[in-house]
């Protein structure tokens, strides 16, 4: 038998220890728990984020509506002032014309 065949024979795979598979399979659930922990943690973070969003978004919407209301009121006041000024001018013109004709 040549050296290569001898080596193949001598280096045949040896059986793993009897409890090897058991040890590996026992370690797997531990890893799963770690993974579950991280998922729980992610879920908690997501919930916390959702709660913060639920509190902040309505406040922002209300604030936005309030700001738009104030803007509309300001525009209305400006329009009324313009109308008031126009009416005053018209009234003065009518008054002047009436004096001249009498």
């Amino acid at each position, binding site marked *: 038998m040549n*050296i*290569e065949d*001898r*080596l*193949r*024979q*001598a*280096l*045949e*795979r*040896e*059986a*793993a*220890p009897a409890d*090897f*598979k058991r*040890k*590996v*399979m026992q*370690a*797997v659930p531990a*890893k799963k728990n770690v993974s579950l922990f991280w998922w729980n943690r992610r879920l908690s973070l997501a919930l916390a984020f959702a709660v913060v969003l639920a509190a902040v978004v309505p406040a922002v919407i209300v604030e936005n509506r309030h700001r738009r209301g104030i803007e509309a009121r300001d525009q209305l006041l400006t329009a009324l002032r313009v109308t008031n000024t126009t009416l005053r001018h018209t009234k003065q013109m009518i008054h002047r014309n009436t004096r001249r004709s009498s």
Partner: protein
Amino acid sequence: MGLDFARIVDDNQSMVVSLAKRYLRDPETAEEIAQDVFLQLYRQLDRIETPQHATFWLRRAICHRAIDESRRRKLRPRVGLENIPEPRAEASAPDAMLNERLRRLVSALPDMPRMIVLLRYQEDLDPSEIAELLEMPVSTVKSHLHRSLAVLREKLGRATAKQEACS
């Protein structure tokens, strides 16, 4: 993807453990690393497509882990091929004894030639497959194999002659 992890462990444990033990020559560390490699595979199981892919992945992982571990722990000082110890001549030399001598000689090879010899004769890989797995040129693998075989042949021949002289 429906790969059965328990089945993968069954099919590959002897390959992974044998490679680790024979390379590291420290059964406890070898077993620890072998377990770790299986757990590493478990974490990436969704990326593994077939049982053959799992075997390929495990073989590559255990080789690199064992090489890293050996470097990290510096389990043994570097030994030149010429300096590997000769096996003791035994009174009787049945096949089992010869195999044991050969295993001892292989375990005394320096790191890289030892891994290459294990992959070639334990795992029956071609030099090109070994080169791909260990990320080195095929010519380097062939040269390591050639030199290792020459040294093993010489040391084994010398030990056998010694034993014949004794008997």
